[in-house]
């Protein structure tokens, strides 16, 4: 196994609001190896975006507060960095692309302007050299048209803007790229172009990608390993084939069953009953228990830990405790 590039362990991030504490991220463990593409899946409000913003140091504190755990990038604990140190890490070692490329680009500056500014933050280059580097990076992401550097964001289409964002993120050759729903705002045919581009960059530059998405189709096509989150916690983790073939956590199972398939049609879709719990009042015991069809007494009383089910494979479910009695498997309760 490769040395993990990113190691999030037992990370907790809470928001202190007037109405109480929101435990947006509550004890999350995620690792990303060098050059690896890892998917982070979950529904709105599960904490996947807050987790990724924490890796970039972009969660405003207050109201956010790191309540425990650590985020290590290439051995450095990011939770302890000061403002100045963050500037060296952000964009240089880890960078991020967002869902809506229009809101992440500044509308009053040209593309060239914005890229040169970003480059010169990190590299000692004069304006001319930085401009040349910007044009070169744009060519790498498939924009070769003359004069692109002098255009404004509104002159570009959604797909082009996302390409520009990727170029900006990749210009300093970061070790890790965090992609937060990078194709959600795009049309299918454009999505295919962008996914293809990201896959190519990963292969050519060796940049690891943490892909945050709610689309299991995108995960299946892009990632080697998947982490599933629910209500601020990791509920299952596995390599891609295993997760789709044999999902263990009832939430993952429900999620996979509830998506309509393109190649075969079922008469009725499965649906997980109920709604995601309110983060201010999490249910006692397992957070998924009120919606789970296999819920047992213990699920409503005691919170399950992560059960290890083999290399790189975990599930947060009491059912594993039952299964353990049959097979001799080592279990570790990381969090209770």
């Amino acid at each position, binding site marked *: 196994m490769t040395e993990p590039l990113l190691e999030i362990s037992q990370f907790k991030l809470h928001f202190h609001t007037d109405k109480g504490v929101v435990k947006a991220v509550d004890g999350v463990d995620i690792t990303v190896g060098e050059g690896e593409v890892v998917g982070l899946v979950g529904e709105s409000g599960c904490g996947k975006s807050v987790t990724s913003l924490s890796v970039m140091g972009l969660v405003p504190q207050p109201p956010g507060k790191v309540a425990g755990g650590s985020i290590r990038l290439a051995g450095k604990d990011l939770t302890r960095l000061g403002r100045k140190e963050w500037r060296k890490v952000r964009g240089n070692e880890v960078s991020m692309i967002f869902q809506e490329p229009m809101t992440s680009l500044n509308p009053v500056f040209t593309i060239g302007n914005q890229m040169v500014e970003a480059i010169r933050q990190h590299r000692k280059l004069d304006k001319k050299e930085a401009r040349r580097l910007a044009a070169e990076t744009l060519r790498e992401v498939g924009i070769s048209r003359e004069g692109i550097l002098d255009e404004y964001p509104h002159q570009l289409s959604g797909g082009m803007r996302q390409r520009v964002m990727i170029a900006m993120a990749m210009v300093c050759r970061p070790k890790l790229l965090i992609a937060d729903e990078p194709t959600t705002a795009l049309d299918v045919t454009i999505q295919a172009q962008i996914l293809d581009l990201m896959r190519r960059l990963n292969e050519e530059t060796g940049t690891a990608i943490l892909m945050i998405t*709610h689309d299991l189709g995108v995960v299946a096509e892009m990632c080697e390993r998947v982490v599933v989150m629910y209500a601020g916690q990791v509920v299952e983790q596995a390599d891609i084939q295993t997760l789709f073939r044999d999902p263990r956590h009832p939430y993952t199972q429900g999620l996979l069953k509830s998506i309509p398939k393109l190649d075969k049609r079922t008469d009725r879709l499965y649906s*997980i009953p109920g709604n995601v719990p309110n983060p201010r009042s999490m249910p006692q015991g397992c957070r998924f228990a009120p919606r789970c069809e296999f819920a047992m007494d213990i699920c409503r009383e005691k919170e399950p830990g992560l059960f290890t089910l083999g290399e790189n494979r975990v599930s947060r479910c009491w059912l594993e405790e039952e299964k353990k009695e049959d097979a001799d498997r080592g279990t570790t309760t990381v969090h209770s």
Partner: protein
Amino acid sequence: MAQPQSILDVRNLKKYFPIRGGVFGRKVGEVKAVDNVSFSVNKGETLGIVGESGCGKSTTGRTILRLEEPTSGEVQFEGKNLVRLKGEEMRRMRRELQMVFQDPFASLNPRKTAGEIIEEPLQVHGIGSAKERKEQVKELLRVVGLDAFHAGRYPHQFSGGQRQRIGIARALAVKPKLIVADEPVSALDVSIQSQVLNLLEDLQEKFDLTYLFIAHDLSVVRHISDRVGVMYLGRMVELADRDGLYENPLHPYTQALLSAVPVPDPETKRERIILSGDVPSPSNPPKGCAFHTRCPHVMDVCREVRPEFKEHGDGHFAACHLLEK
């Protein structure tokens, strides 16, 4: 089996939006949002319309209900041409045709309670006494899977899925025959999306509804539709029954669209057609076939002549020069 009876016939529908410019706001061009679209919807079926953003699928839905005035063309609903109806006649007609909108956050008035929102169409159409209406609202809430006590709550107190249920209850209130659903599940999470899709199917069976289901998600459309139409740049490029379209797509655009959808199964490896470039601007659509700028099989004739939208066997319509040979 009885011959399918069409409930809605759309003939050569056009909707052009003017582009105004200059000091006097003169018309300097037009956006051909819907450009000569024809199709019909059979009673009790679900016709899905798919396409990428800007292809005119939403405008088609809105123009049918005359939320936008069509530039030309006919919309026959049960034998009546909706385009010709005058204000009051059209208003009464809307009892038969209702709409469910995409954004459950923007389409509900935040200052009204769920009960008031659902009751409003009943009031507008003068149905029942105040007391009967209250009863009906409770019944509607139950039908869409909410509780009677939810009537007193405001939209912000509901989750996205629940809000969409309120939007559906509002559409159902006047007992319509046809519902135009414009991206009704695209703002929802996967687990909630399947709940709403199932609800729509149940309601269709229970109330004998006909749906025009507009969406960009091809898997969702396959799940819910009996027949599917594909739009590109204001034009219908292919229309067929569900399996015919998904298993045997004739138009190169449909083929590319289907191959571009990421499949949630890491073990299937598919041939992928990645289209280069973007959708051209509808204010200046390409001459000839609108798709020729991105088509992998483009021929000379495609750049000059607009292909005719016609039947290629068994209710499978497509507009492509390749099929002429």
